[in-house]
Structure formats: structure tokens, C-alpha cells
């Protein structure tokens, strides 16, 4: 994707977000804020799958821990809120990089199980460290009156909170699109597609995979900080494997081949939850059927289906079909 296209999409997305913030009621905006936060979470998880081909069942670790780090640092008055936010995101990114140097070596399902185990370890630790984290009851986060120069009460209004999350989502998407169109994207795709061949073209394969794991954690931890700001509360539930599972569902429904697919999946999930929740208490059963339908008919998710439709239209307009071009004779 060219820089101009990334800039155009960013501009359009920001305009759409502003319009939504201006036109909708507080209830709708609260739902959309939650969806946007989970969109960022799913974006982080989807990045790991897209660039490393790895499925994590424990990414809630970075989501929940980000909130806990901010909460604990504020409780201990160790850092101002701004510093606590930066410490949470950077600290988790660094932690994920070091952890990644070990865990990304583990292939396939074993990687998933390892992330599940590490995630649950954090869940149990948070549940039982009553003195520091409030244990199973969770902890309130004592946000100061101002944050980055803005009054917190204004930030927490539904429209500004939604806009803040939306801008974060759009900027992260644009940043990732920019990063992945370059050498880092090529290297990580090569390692994902064929690690052995990658070594034989001179790529050291461990660092790029650990870097993707760290980047994925960084994005997810931003979602965790925003969630902590939105609710003013963090509990062990945010670290539970089921939260990772929900995010993974969003990635699958939205599709991970397109960078924006997981974010779309989060939107669809919250929309389904809102609409179906009105009719059925066990709405997840209905969503499960939708999930199966997507997996069967479009394994690349909704984004993949949309891209296929767009490609067909493009092909209809005269673009040559992929793979039909004939090479010139060897010379």
C-alpha cells in the first residue's frame, strides 16, 4: 500500500470517527468505545497471526496487565499517570520481546498452549495477590484530574472517549500499514512463509519473530490502557483465557490476512452482541453458528470475502488474472 493511500485512508477514517462522535448518543458511543478498544486488542492478536503465523491463546495477559501496571503505579504513587501509561506499554513491549525470544521458537499448537499457560499464570497471580491487585475483586484505578493536559472528566465523556479510542485505532492501523509495507514487513512475511528458506537468503529468523510478538503485545497493551481509562477499573477477568478467546474469535470472523480484518471482526462481534443480546440470553450460541459459517464459507474472514469481491470487480474491469501470465522463454 502506498504512503498516499495510507494517508488517505487515515484521513477518511478520522473524519468518519468524528462524524460518529458528533451524531450518536452516549449509549451508542459507549458500545462503540468498547468495540474500538477490542478492535485494537484484536488488531494486536491478528498482527501476530498475520506476520508470524502464530495463534496466541493468552494475549489477554498484555490486555489485563497493562491496566494493572497503570493501576498499581498510580496506587503506589510511583509515577504520574502519563508516565504510568508509557511504562505500562513500553514495559510490556520489552517483556514480550524477551518472552518472545523464548516462546516463538516453539512451533504450532505448542506455542498456543504455552501462551495459554503463561496467560493463566498471570490470571491466577492477579487473582491471589489481594494486597497489591485487590485479588478477585479487582482494583479501581485512581486516575488524576488531568491527563496529558486535558481534564479527565472531559476525556471520560462518551464522545471524547470514543474519539480518543478511535484515533488510537486509526493511528495504530496507519502506523502498522506503514511499517509492514517496508523491509520489516518483507522479512517477517518471508520468515512466516518459509523459515528455513529465509535463513538461506541470509535472514536471522528469531529476532524478527520476537519483534512481531513484542509489537503485537504493544498494540494489545494500548487497548488494555484504554480499557482501564474507560472503565476506571481492572480485574483478573481481563486476564482470563476466555478474553483471549473472544479476541481470537474477532480475528477469525474479521479475517487476519487484511491488517484491518480483526478490527472489523471486533465491530461485527459487538454489533451481534448488541442486536442478538436483545433477543436471546444465549446469544453466543447464535454467534457461534455465524462463526462456523464464516470459517466454512470464507476461511479468510469477512475482510477476505470483501477483498475477493473487490478483486473480482477489478478483474471484470480488465485487470489480468493472477497466475495466467506466461513467462518469456528462457534465454
Amino acid at each position: 500500500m502506498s504512503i498516499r493511500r495510507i494517508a488517505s485512508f487515515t484521513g477518511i477514517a478520522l473524519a468518519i470517527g468524528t462524524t460518529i462522535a458528533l451524531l450518536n448518543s452516549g449509549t451508542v458511543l459507549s458500545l462503540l468505545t468498547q468495540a474500538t478498544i477490542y478492535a485494537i486488542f484484536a488488531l494486536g492478536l491478528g498482527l501476530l497471526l498475520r506476520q508470524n503465523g502464530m495463534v496466541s491463546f493468552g494475549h489477554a495477559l498484555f490486555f489485563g496487565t497493562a491496566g494493572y501496571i497503570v493501576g498499581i503505579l498510580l496506587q503506589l504513587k510511583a509515577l504520574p499517570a502519563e508516565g504510568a501509561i508509557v511504562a505500562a506499554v513500553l514495559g510490556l513491549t520489552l517483556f514480550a520481546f524477551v518472552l518472545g525470544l523464548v516462546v516463538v521458537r516453539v512451533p504450532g499448537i505448542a506455542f498456543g498452549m504455552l501462551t495459554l499457560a503463561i496467560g493463566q499464570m498471570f490470571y491466577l497471580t492477579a487473582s491471589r495477590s489481594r494486597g497489591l491487585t485487590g485479588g478477585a475483586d479487582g482494583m479501581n484505578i485512581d486516575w488524576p484530574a488531568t491527563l496529558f493536559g486535558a481534564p479527565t472528566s472531559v476525556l471520560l465523556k462518551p464522545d471524547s472517549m470514543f474519539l480518543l479510542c478511535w484515533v488510537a485505532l486509526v493511528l495504530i492501523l496507519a502506523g502498522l500499514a506503514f511499517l509492514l509495507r517496508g523491509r520489516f514487513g518483507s522479512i517477517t512475511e518471508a520468515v512466516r512463509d518459509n523459515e528455513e528458506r529465509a535463513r538461506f537468503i541470509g535472514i536471522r529468523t528469531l529476532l524478527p519473530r520476537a519483534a512481531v510478538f513484542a509489537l503485537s503485545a504493544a498494540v494489545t497493551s494500548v487497548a488494555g490502557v484504554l480499557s482501564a481509562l474507560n472503565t476506571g477499573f481492572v480485574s483478573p477477568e481481563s486476564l482470563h483465557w476466555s478474553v483471549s478467546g473472544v479476541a481470537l474469535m474477532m480475528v477469525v470472523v474479521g479475517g487476519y490476512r487484511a491488517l484491518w480484518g480483526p478490527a472489523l471482526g471486533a465491530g461485527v462481534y459487538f454489533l451481534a452482541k448488541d442486536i442478538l443480546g436483545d433477543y436471546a440470553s444465549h446469544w453466543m450460541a447464535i454467534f457461534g453458528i455465524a462463526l462456523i459459517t464464516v470459517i466454512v464459507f470464507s476461511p479468510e474472514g469477512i475482510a477476505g470475502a470483501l477483498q475477493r469481491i473487490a478483486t473480482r470487480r477489478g478483474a471484470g474491469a480488465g485487470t489480468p488474472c493472477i497466475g495466467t501470465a506466461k513467462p518469456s522463454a528462457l534465454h
Partner: protein
Amino acid sequence: MSEFVLQADDVAIHYGGVKAVDGVCLTLERGQIRGLIGPNGAGKSTVIDAITGRRKLTRGRVQLRGEDVTALDVVERRRRGLSRSFQRTSVFGQMPVRRQVELASHKMHVSDSAADADDVLQELGLDALGDVTAADLGYGEQRRLDLALALVGRPSVLLLDEPMAGLSVKESMDLAQHLKALASRRDVSVLLVEHDMDVVFGISDVVTVFELGRVIASGEPAAVRADARVREAYLGSAA
């Protein structure tokens, strides 16, 4: 005086009691094409794995342009000019052709990697397919892409593990002639493992024959073809 760009001395790879390769010595002179033949399981691919660093040596030494590279890993050997293709096509399935060849060139620290990639793609007749995802290529095209990934960055030694596998007779002969011209033009020495006897004897300067992990004959194609032990051990009625 001949110049060895590659020298493998007493290379052995043992798996427990199994001696996959046992005391093999191989050399490549500058610009030379050495054919490597032998029955299935003779240890031909294992020797390539040994030379490129994919498998650890039980004993022996590998030198590249006079430098001992035995202790170096795959990446370092590739950076020093030791390149290979694979028996089973090994490309980056989801990446467009040009992007992966350009990446391979960049990783070899070529200053103008885009021009190097274009040059190799053109050389292998892949220039029109630069934007096509590798998985969408035909089999023969994927074989050539595998070769392109090995050729960028101007390696001094190219180890080709059955590059004609799965190609039609005509495609094999085309690629063989192309390889010969390419080795000369790009000043690269080639170690060619191949089952197609016509190809091996047609383009190799020297031929080495393996059996049960050991060299049983080595020399000019005509002499090897005439070697009674080779005829008995490998070529049989095909000789």
C-alpha cells in the same frame, strides 16, 4: 594453478550408527560445474546440507575461497557466497515474486538490490511475473524462482539439489543449457545433484559418483561413464 572456491575435506555425517556421509572430499574450481550422482540414499543431499551448514558435521572441514567456514551457520555461509536451491521447491508462497527476490538481494547487502533482483529475474525469464504471488506460479516457474533466490547477491558457489525434479524433458534440457551459460556469465561454480543423467553428463565439467555415503568415482564425464565400478553400482543398463 587451479583455484578452489569450495573445498570439503573428509566430511562425515553420522546418525548414531548410520553413516549417511562418510569421509567425503569434494572440490570446486572457479567457474566449474561438478555433477554429483548416485543411487537414492547415497548421501548426495546430505552432502549439500553439510556444506551449507544445514546439518552439523560429525567430522571434516568446509572451506570457502580459502576460508574455513565449518563453524559458521547457514546465514554466515550464505553471506560469504555459498548459496543453494532445494530438492523440494522452497519459495515464499504468499509473497510476490519480485518482492522476495529483492529481499534476498538486500539481505546479501547488495547496494542496488532492486537492480540485482531485476537482473536475476530477467535472466531466469521471471521478469513478467514480478507482481505474481509465488503460490500462484506454475511448478516450473517456482523452480526458477527457487533458483533466483539462490542467485541474487552474486554467490561464488551454487549448490543445486535436483533443480530439474518434476520438470518435463524439454524444460530440463532448457534449464540445463541455461544453467551452463549462467554459471559462466555470473562466474559462479556449481555443484549439481541431479538424477537426470543426460543433464549431468551434458553440462558438467567433472562428475562425482556417490554410493553409501562415499565417493566411488570422480573425474571427467567420459571417464566416469566408462568406470566399471560406476556402471555396476549405479548406471547399470542405463550406461
